[in-house]
Every structure is written in structure tokens, then in C-alpha cells.
């Protein structure tokens, strides 16, 4: 499988003021701290982790919404971080994003037609009539009635709006789509519709997805591989069919134990691993292993030495001193 996207040692720090409202004391918030991974063409990679672990930052940096602090993002042998603004704008047509909140991601003052047409308008593709036709075709692709082309976003339901967002992302025939929690704002029956549609689109259009989510059941369903992030670092990477059966990192184990099982009898018997405390502040992360403050098996070595991401065979990577 050829690699479509390669992220190497990606770091994204945000400057934050920690000195209170009157004292100016800047610190860096390490949203993403040395993350490397690859995505193969036609693959779906799930990116999971709890709120504040840097999932969204990784996605937004890849599509160029944030400039990385360090590291490189290589897309089809082109280093995105080295491109000029103008060149980056052109590459973006192949690299699209689906947003989390379908209520906020569509401009409320534009009609659906204009929203979906906009990417083509920006790159002056085709005549106005051709673009209109393409918009109608796109709306049909995502299961919306093309007659609603002149309606405004607020007239649609959440699921329908997410379809509009997907149609917009598809307008430029992208190859790679970053889906930033595309279903977390929808209710469960609609989630299934959207995920199934994303799968159909992937098959028909040969798309590659980076699927960001915190719903592990959904990630298992859609992803080929899963990357688990904790506090801006990768803790575990594996094929999704394996990681759910044999998680190695204690954090992944805890995450998986929190997935509800739709059978009350099994649900009652199983053991949950409840993590103590909260996510430490990314402004001042713990020394050594970032997870050690909440880890049930932490040892003194965890505070001193940062675990490397080790290959445990057949692409199963884990960063824990005690994983075997």
C-alpha cells in the first residue's frame, strides 16, 4: 500500500498566558508533542483519545489550519509545511475536512447551493451552469434532494447539515479527508446513516480518511487502523481488529473498558477500569511517561524515563515500559 500522508515528529504548541489577567507570563501549551504516523492510500485511520488530547489539533494542522511548531507533514511526496501560501491553497483541494459541529460549520447566510459551490468558485472551475449541475449531483451523492439547493442551512436537521458539509468537502474531488468527529454532534440513528454513507463514498470515490473520534465503537466499525493519543502523544497504534482484542497500553485498556456493551447481562458482569484524577494540564505535563499520574501500574522508572514507541510486531506500536 503506498503512503498518501506521512506525519513526522509533528509538534504544535500554543502560547498561553498563565500569569493571570494582569501579569503577562507566557507558557506553551503542548497540544501535539512529537507525533509521527503514516496513512496508506484508501485506508481509514481512526484517531482516538479523550477531550483535550490533541486529536483535533492534529487534524487541523494536517489541513493547514494551524502552522506546526516543528515536524513535517508529507502529502503525496510534497512537504506541506514548506509550501508557500498560494501553493498550499492549491494542495488543499485534495485535502479536505469534515467538521464536528454541523450547526457551526455552515455559513448561516449562504444557501446550500452556494456553500457547496464555493470551492469550485474559488478555483474558478467550470461555468456557472456547470458548477450548478455539479452541486446538484453532489447533493444527490450525499442523499439530499437537489431541489433544496436554494435553502438555507438552518432549515436542515443536524444529519442533513452534516451531509451538506460532506458535499462541500467532496466538491473538489479530494483524495484525503480529515473527519473531525463528524458524528459526535448527531444522535445515534443519524450517526449510523452518516458513517455508512462515509463508507460508501470511500468505496465509490477511493477516499482516504483520518477519522477523529472519541466513540470507540464507531471507530472500530469504520477504521482499518487506530491511533490512540494521550496528552499530545501517541500511546498505541494497531490494526483496529486487534487493538480491541489485545490492547497493550494501560490507557487503551481503560478506554476500551469504558465502551458500553449493548447487552445488560454482560454489561453488569464486566470490570471497568476507572482512571483516577483528571487529564493533567498540557501546559505542564508530567515528567517521563505522560500517563504515569493516572496509570494503575506506574513504577518509579515511569517518572524518570519517557517510554519510546516500540514495535511489538505486525505494526502494533505501543509506548509503555511494561507492555509485552
Amino acid at each position, binding site marked *: 500500500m503506498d503512503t498518501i500522508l506521512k506525519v513526522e515528529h509533528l509538534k504544535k504548541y500554543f502560547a498561553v498566558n498563565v500569569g493571570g489577567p494582569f501579569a503577562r507570563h507566557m507558557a506553551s501549551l503542548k497540544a501535539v508533542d512529537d507525533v509521527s504516523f503514516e496513512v496508506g492510500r484508501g485506508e481509514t485511520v481512526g484517531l482516538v483519545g479523550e477531550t483535550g488530547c490533541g486529536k483535533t489539533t492534529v487534524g*487541523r494542522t494536517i*489541513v*493547514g*489550519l494551524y502552522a506546526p511548531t516543528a515536524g513535517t507533514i508529507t502529502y503525496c511526496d510534497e512537504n506541506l509545511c514548506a509550501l508557500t501560501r498560494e501553493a498550499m*491553497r*492549491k494542495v*488543499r*483541494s485534495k*485535502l*479536505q*475536512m469534515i*467538521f*464536528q*459541529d454541523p450547526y*457551526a*460549520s*455552515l*455559513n*448561516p*447566510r*449562504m444557501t446550500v447551493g452556494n456553500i457547496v459551490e*464555493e*470551492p469550485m468558485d*474559488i*478555483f474558478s472551475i467550470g461555468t456557472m451552469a456547470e458548477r450548478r449541475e455539479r452541486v446538484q449531483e453532489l447533493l*444527490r451523492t450525499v*442523499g*439530499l*434532494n*437537489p431541489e*433544496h439547493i*436554494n*435553502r*438555507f442551512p438552518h*432549515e*436542515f436537521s443536524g*444529519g*442533513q447539515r452534516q*451531509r451538506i*458539509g460532506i458535499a*462541500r468537502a467532496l*466538491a*473538489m474531488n479530494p483524495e484525503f479527508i480529515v473527519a473531525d468527529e463528524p458524528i459526535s454532534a448527531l444522535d445515534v*440513528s443519524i450517526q*449510523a*446513516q452518516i458513517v*455508512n*454513507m462515509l463508507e*460508501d463514498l470511500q468505496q465509490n470515490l477511493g477516499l482516504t480518511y483520518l477519522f477523529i473520534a472519541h466513540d470507540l465503537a464507531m471507530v472500530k466499525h469504520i477504521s482499518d487502523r487506530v491511533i490512540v493519543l494521550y496528552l499530545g502523544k501517541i500511546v498505541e497504534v494497531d490494526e483496529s481488529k486487534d487493538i480491541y482484542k489485545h490492547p497493550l497500553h494501560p490507557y487503551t485498556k481503560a478506554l476500551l473498558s469504558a465502551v458500553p456493551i449493548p447487552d445488560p447481562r454482560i454489561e453488569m458482569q464486566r470490570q471497568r477500569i476507572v482512571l483516577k484524577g483528571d487529564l493533567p494540564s498540557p501546559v505542564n505535563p508530567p515528567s517521563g511517561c505522560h500517563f504515569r499520574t493516572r496509570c494503575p501500574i506506574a513504577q518509579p522508572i515511569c517518572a524518570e524515563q519517557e517510554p519510546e514507541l516500540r514495535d511489538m510486531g505486525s505494526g502494533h506500536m505501543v509506548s509503555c515500559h511494561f507492555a509485552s
Partner: protein
Amino acid sequence: MAAQTAWQFKEGVAPDAGSFVPAPKDSGELQQIAGRSTTYWSDAIRRIRRNKLAVVGFWIIIALFVVAIVGPMVSPYSYEDQDLDNTFQSPTLRHPFGTDQLGRDQMTRVMYGSRISLAVGIVCAALNFLIGVTYGGISAYFGGRVDDIMMRIVDILYGIPTLIIVILLTVLFKDKGVNPLVNVFIAIGLTYWLPMARIVRGEILSLKEREFALAAKTIGAPNNRILFRHLIPNAMGPIIVTVTLEIPAAIFTEAFLSYIGLGVSAPVASWGVLASDGTEAIRSFPYLVLFPALAISLTMFAFNFLGDGLRDALDPRLRQ
């Protein structure tokens, strides 16, 4: 498109456990909307119609425009024609607002004054849109250092009173044959876009973090497109409200400047000049100050009522 969990009744059967059949998993139908299409503006118009004061204000403003344009044209008198045989006439059918110390028809002069007031209002609105909105938008969109510098400039200009600017301009343009109205326009131009710049900046600061602005970036929209197509149209509500509340302030400033003799001067009639002339004779001929003063108050009320109504109608938090 699949996995629908809706349930349907079998035809003609009372609903019990057995009468439910699962809906087809994938009907292949496209998603439909049955409701009538409503836009943001049709919604706002519907709400503002319920506000009686705002509607009254709106019609007074329309009437004002009609009077300003048509009034002096159809009037048998001109604003500067003197009739020294008929000075200080009380209101009669021939002179509904009476005549002044030089026998000029007061009604024609008040109607002519409305032209100046509305011109001031239009200039103020235009500058608000051209300078205020663009300036505030750019400042907020680019943020950081750009924002700091641009907003400090606004702060400095804010600190200079309009009156001082007008006095300086009057000294500067003295004996240069510049129409004194130009002084007023420049003074209003320099000061009245400032609140607008601040309000637009605040709006854009919050809008630019919204996901649709990020979405515009990911589809490759250049900065000016994001600012003028995505962000500013979404700030249109507060912008329009600010304009309708800035216009009466500008009109009042002109009237005030003319009243104290820094604005337009005789024989040109502005409401401020008329009120000033009228005050001199207020004990003997109170109607000379009454009508310009009424015109000023009526305009103030009309614009402010409309502005308040628009604010309520366009504020998304008050939407019903």
C-alpha cells in the same frame, strides 16, 4: 442512508406489540424538507412588524425623505427669498410655520433643513460602512499586532472631541471658500466610524473562530473572501443596528454645531441654524424655535425607535 429505526403501523390494526413492523432499512429516498423556506431577513421583518414603535419610526423616516426631496420643490417659496413686508408672521394658511425676521417661509426652511440633516445622516452611514466596518473587520481578522496597532489608533481618535476637530477645521479652512458643511462632514467622518469599528471588531473576533470560517479556509478561500463573504455578512445585524443609532447622533451633532455657529451659516437653513435664530426671538415668537426643534426631536425619536426595534429583531438571542 441505512439503519433507520422508525416504526410504522400495519394498516387498520390497533397498536399492540405485534402490530409493529420495522420500516424498510434503506428506502433509497432522498432527504426532504416540507416546511416553507424562510430566510434570516424575512424572519427579521416579521418580528419588527410586531414592534409598533419601530414601524412608526420607519414610516416617519420615509416621510422625512419624501419631504426633504419633494418639499422644497413644490413649495411656492424658496428658502432664501426674503419678504420684508411679512416678517414675523404667525402660522397661517399661507405660511403654515409662519415667517422669520426676514419674512422667509419657515416651513420651506425647515423642509430645506431636512435635506442637510439627511445628507449628514447619509454621509455618516456611508462612512460607517466604508471605513468602520472594513477597519474593524481587518483589525479583528488579522488580530495580534495588527489588531493592537489599529485599535490604539481608534482609542486615540476617540479621545479627541468632535467639537475640537470642528474648531480646528474652521480655523484651517477660514477664508478659503470652503463650504462650512464640509467641516461638519469631515468632523463626522473622523469620529463617527469609531464605535462601528469597535463593534465590528468584537463581532468578527468571535465569528472568526466559528467552524464555518475554518471551513472556508480549508476549501482554500483567500483572506478577503473569508472576511467579506463569510464574516461581515454574519455581523450584519449589529452593523445595521449601530448605523441606525449612529445616524441620529450625527444629525444631532450637525444641528448642535450649527446652533453654536460652527456648522452651516445663513442663508442656508439647517435645523440647528433655524433653532439658533428662533431662540433669539423665543419670547415674542416661540413658533420660530418650535418647528425646527420638533423636527429634530421627531427625527431623533424615529431613528432611535427603529434602531431599538432592529436590535430586538436582529438579535439572535431574542429570536422566537
